[in-house]
């Protein structure tokens, strides 16, 4: 699967929520696009990520 342009092996399919948390992302401060579609926050626990997925994760830091 592809995460932010880099390839990784994903051994086990998992929910997007689990995927983010195991990689240290806080779901409250990200925007996620899976296979070209923006995923609503409410759907993170219902969306499955497998080894064919292409994901862009944008993490926001404070200030402005």
């Amino acid at each position: 699967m592809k995460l932010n342009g880099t390839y990784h092996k994903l051994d086990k399919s998992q929910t997007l929520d689990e995927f983010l948390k195991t990689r240290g992302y806080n779901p409250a401060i990200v925007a996620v696009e899976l296979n070209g579609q923006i995923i609503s926050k409410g759907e993170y626990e219902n969306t499955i990520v497998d080894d064919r997925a292409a994901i862009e994760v944008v993490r926001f830091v404070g200030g402005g």
Partner: protein
Amino acid sequence: MRITLNGRKIELDAGWAFEVRERYGKPNDIVILNGFQIEEDCKISENDILNIITKGVMPGKDELESMMMARHTPRVHSEVKKGKVAVAGLGGLGSNIAVMLARVGVGQLLLVDFDVVEPSNLNRQCYSISHLGMPKTAALKKQIQEINPFVKIELRDVRVAENNVRELFEGYDIVCEAFDKPEAKAVLVNTALEQLPDIKVVAASGMAGCESSNLIRTVKPMKRLYLCGDLENGAGTGSGLMAPRVMVCAGHQANMVLRLLLGMEEA
């Protein structure tokens, strides 16, 4: 030949810019041809844009806008004047973005913020002592009207939330995310991209401190999302926000908005 002189299309029989100055202006007027102030005479061509400006003289309203935009790259202003841009958050980023877009001549701006100007804003936000205590929307509108009176300004004194994003930003070409808290940034970016399929979002992440300005850049992580900042340096205790770097980031956002209004979609 036909040229545009101080905003008006005219037909004339002249070959050189200084000839036009002699006929229509005064000997010491500044001459701006196709976006550049010329010190030496230049030949003029069909459809050239000429502005002849007398310093110290207030022009009429019909000439003012053309003169204000005289140094723009030709044809940029007529394009951006069609643009409708929303600025969500009028702090360090938003207030500066709004002023830059006003200078560039964006047709319509929506300014959204629930807050008032207070002293700790002045180290980076585009407000003055005279604005302390005023709602940011009103304070910014007042300034913009004195910078470019031709911009149409809408104000909303509200806190942006998931349930009002669509209603606030519907009809706008671009929304600039200019919030402070990362959670608010995430809510706006996610909701705008999900619920407004035609809108483009220009967001910001990372502009604290005084690390190198060269770390601040614009990237395009998604088809309709642009992100400006160094993506790392968040504000926090021990890591402040100060005008130079905040305004570099605001400049990135405003330039990306300009590019989008001109049809350039790459970061």
